[in-house]
């Protein structure tokens, strides 16, 4: 039997993340895996090869690993993008940021003109009115788009809808006497069209095309998500909170198994409506269904809500603007129970903790669980973990926990954190990447796409520069070096998924997953890191140019 063919890629520079050989010019690939890096003469020893010069002027890095994203980013592109900042869609078209409410309305009007039936609903996403001054968006704004069809727009945070009068009518909310903290009323005693929080949003969601059925099991959305991954150099991406019903698992297995599917999807089962026993049992069964490009069997837990939604649990002294403390999403008994059982069965658990009190609770629960069920290499990870202080990072290190921090927040909400939610001091230490590394906590960083755009190099830029949208720099002492940032978006994230033996560096035995870059991230100025141009990816030895094929 003849061995499979060998391809040797020549590149301008290969940044391997392998400390024994940090840089190289060639990488040899066979059967979708890496034979080795080095000068051509060394690699020629593997046997007959084809030399591929496609990347002769490009820089290769290990394929980026997005440790906290949601495939829903692909779904959202079916709606009209209305964000304040430029954003690239899966087809590579850059949608310019909307500069004003007027601009937002104009875009919706344009999208409206393309619709057929006069009753079809119209949805948009990414709205961020904080950039448009003090004026709130009200239903009259979107009544200018249509009075016959429901029009609704999700805010960038994902926690608020703004809708038109017709949508309120259809949801039965255009009436006096509505009494709900998430539904402000106008001078006429009727809702203004702003709907905050999941309950209020659910009621109109179905009428504007944001219903759960549209969002669940979305095959086209998964394909669009994969295209976005290619554009951002991502070869392994998490889909971090999925309920994974059987039909969704079958769809995902089929689509990811197609010869041309370019990403490894790591989908976590959300801990919800099940006991710890049930979810751990399910995770074990799901794990057995894993394939190379669909990894199952881990669990995602929500401990609290979000900081900008004031639903995160903060320790004393709480929110800077005096808002009441946030909400617990899971009781500590359930967290402890899940941790203990998951440790026993070897099931990986990632826990969403935004506020520092939620982080403390998760640490307490894991410490207790580890006493009952010692485990040496559990890699339980705190996701977001945005407000953790130095003492908490030291505890995380001792307990063997990893952190996946959220530096994109500095840019998108840093000014709000500074001025409103947590105040200057804590805004300066939020997402303390430097402290995490100094404490020995294995570190990843993430986008939480679609909350912020998928793009590990942008996230790395956020961790290096800590710059807000207004240009404020939040805490230079927590900035990390470009080299450290690049490690967190490759090996760092892979470690938190227990995939660091397979991906995250370019070395013998690992998957041939590369981010193919036009610019060298170690040569470009650190403040330009987000502007590094991306050619596409190589995944399992297969070439995926972002613009083409």
């Amino acid at each position: 039997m003849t061995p499979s063919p060998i391809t040797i890629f020549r590149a301008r520079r290969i940044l391997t993340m392998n400390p024994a050989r940090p840089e190289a010019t060639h990488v040899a690939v066979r059967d979708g895996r890496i034979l080795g890096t080095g000068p051509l003469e060394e690699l020629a020893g593997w046997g007959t090869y084809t030399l591929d010069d496609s990347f002769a002027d490009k820089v290769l890095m290990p394929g980026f690993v997005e440790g906290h994203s949601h495939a829903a980013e692909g779904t959202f592109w079916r709606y009209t993008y209305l964000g304040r900042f430029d954003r690239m869609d899966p087809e590579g078209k850059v949608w310019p940021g909307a500069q004003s409410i007027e601009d937002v309305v104009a875009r919706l009007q344009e999208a409206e003109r393309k619709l057929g039936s006069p009753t079809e609903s119209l949805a948009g996403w990414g709205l961020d009115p904080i950039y448009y001054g003090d004026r709130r968006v009200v239903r009259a704004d979107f009544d200018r788009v249509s009075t016959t069809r429901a029009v609704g727009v999700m805010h960038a945070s994902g926690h608020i809808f703004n809708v038109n009068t017709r949508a309120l009518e259809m949801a039965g909310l255009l009436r006096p006497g509505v009494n709900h903290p998430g539904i402000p009323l106008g001078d006429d005693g009727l809702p203004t069209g702003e709907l905050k929080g999941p309950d209020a949003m659910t009621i109109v969601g179905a009428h504007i095309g944001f219903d759960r059925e549209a969002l669940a099991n979305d095959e086209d959305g998964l394909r669009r998500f994969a295209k976005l991954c290619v554009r951002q150099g991502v070869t392994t991406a998490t889909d971090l909170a999925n309920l994974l019903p059987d039909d969704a698992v079958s769809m995902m297995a089929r689509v990811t198994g197609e010869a041309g599917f370019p990403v490894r999807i790591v989908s976590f089962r959300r801990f919800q409506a099940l006991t710890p026993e049930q979810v751990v049992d399910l995770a074990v069964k799901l794990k057995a269904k894993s394939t190379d490009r669909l990894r199952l069997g881990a669990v995602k837990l929500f401990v609290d809500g979000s900081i900008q939604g004031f639903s995160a649990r903060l320790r004393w002294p709480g929110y800077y603007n005096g808002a009441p403390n946030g909400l617990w999403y899971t009781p500590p008994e359930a967290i402890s129970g899940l941790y203990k059982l998951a440790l026993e069965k070897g099931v990986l658990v990632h826990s969403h903790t935004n506020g520092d009190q939620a982080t403390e609770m998760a640490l307490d629960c894991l410490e207790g669980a580890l006493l009952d069920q010692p485990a040496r290499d559990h890699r339980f990870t705190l996701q977001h973990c945005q407000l953790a202080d130095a003492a908490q990072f030291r505890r995380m290190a001792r307990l063997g926990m990893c952190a996946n921090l959220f530096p994109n927040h500095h840019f998108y909400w840093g000014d709000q954190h500074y001025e409103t939610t947590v105040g200057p001091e804590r805004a300066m230490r939020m997402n303390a990447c430097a402290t995490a590394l100094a404490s020995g906590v294995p570190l990843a960083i993430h986008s939480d796409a679609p909350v912020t755009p998928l793009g590990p190099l942008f996230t790395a830029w956020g961790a290096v520069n800590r710059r807000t949208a207004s240009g404020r720099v939040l805490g230079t002492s927590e900035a990390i070096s470009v080299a450290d940032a690049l490690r967190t978006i490759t090996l760092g994230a892979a470690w938190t998924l227990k995939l660091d033996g397979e991906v995250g560096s370019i070395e013998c035995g690992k998957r041939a997953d590369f981010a193919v870059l036009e610019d060298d991230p170690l040569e470009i100025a650190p403040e330009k890191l987000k502007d590094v141009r991306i050619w596409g990816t190589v995944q399992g030895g297969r070439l995926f140019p972002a613009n083409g094929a």
Partner: protein
Amino acid sequence: MRRARLPVTVIGGYLGAGKTTLVNRLLRAADGRKLAVLVNDFGTTPVDRDLIVSSNGDTLEISGGCICCSYGSDLMDVLMALPERQPDVERVVIETSGVALPGMVASAVSLLLPYRIDGIVVMVDVETVRTMAGDAYLGDTITRQLSAADLVVANRCDLVDETSLQETLAWLALQSPAARILPSTRADIAPDLLLGLRDGAPPRLSATLTTPGAPDAAALYESLELDVPENIDADELGRRLSAPGTGVLRAKGVLNGAALHVVGQRFEIDAAPAGAKPGKLVVIGLRARLDRHAVAEALQPRLSTSLRNG
């Protein structure tokens, strides 16, 4: 005529307070009423096996025509679909998760037109509630739960001595000054308090407490049936009966074509059900606590100053 909205009872309280026991008790006491009981998950709220007729994923069919659904994080979706899925449901009981705030849940449910909040019941374990309220993580959740209660069920009274019970009841009264507080053991409160009084029929308190060892309901509760003068305003009557100090746990009256429902500190006016007998008011309270004088006074058409200030 406008259709009466479906009454919704929200049951909140931390883990171990007895919510599951109460839910099972209500299902057992439904007595022909078609209840839809919505629980966060069946794992933490096991329905007694002998009550289950059949099971279909997230829905259990319960003997006597009730159903039980788990909703996870999709309570609003489940409620929106319910009237079409189960058109014969007469009443909804929502058991919230241990860390949920029942006041927030009620406020969300009130956005849905087919429903009205009948009452918010918060259960506590009298043995642990004060310690829990001091917990760094959970204390504010416990006190926020209590502050939204119409009725507080102070459960597991058999586990504490009398002095400590009285201290805890006094503490609870401070946490929810307007709520009615009901001491109980094994959640043995009269189900009619939560499931509602039936039209035309006298309160069936004695028939609903069949648990061996449970105290005699007739000894615990008192019910009054009164004639309502024609010229009384339903809104005003509701305000008076739900005012602190009347001891009214539940009241129902049909007057001027509307139905008045009182549960603890809450009252709602809704369309009168078809065939309801007008001009009658039924009131239930704890035997020692129901202020007959205040109830009689509430039915006086002219306001007395004391009630206005009460």
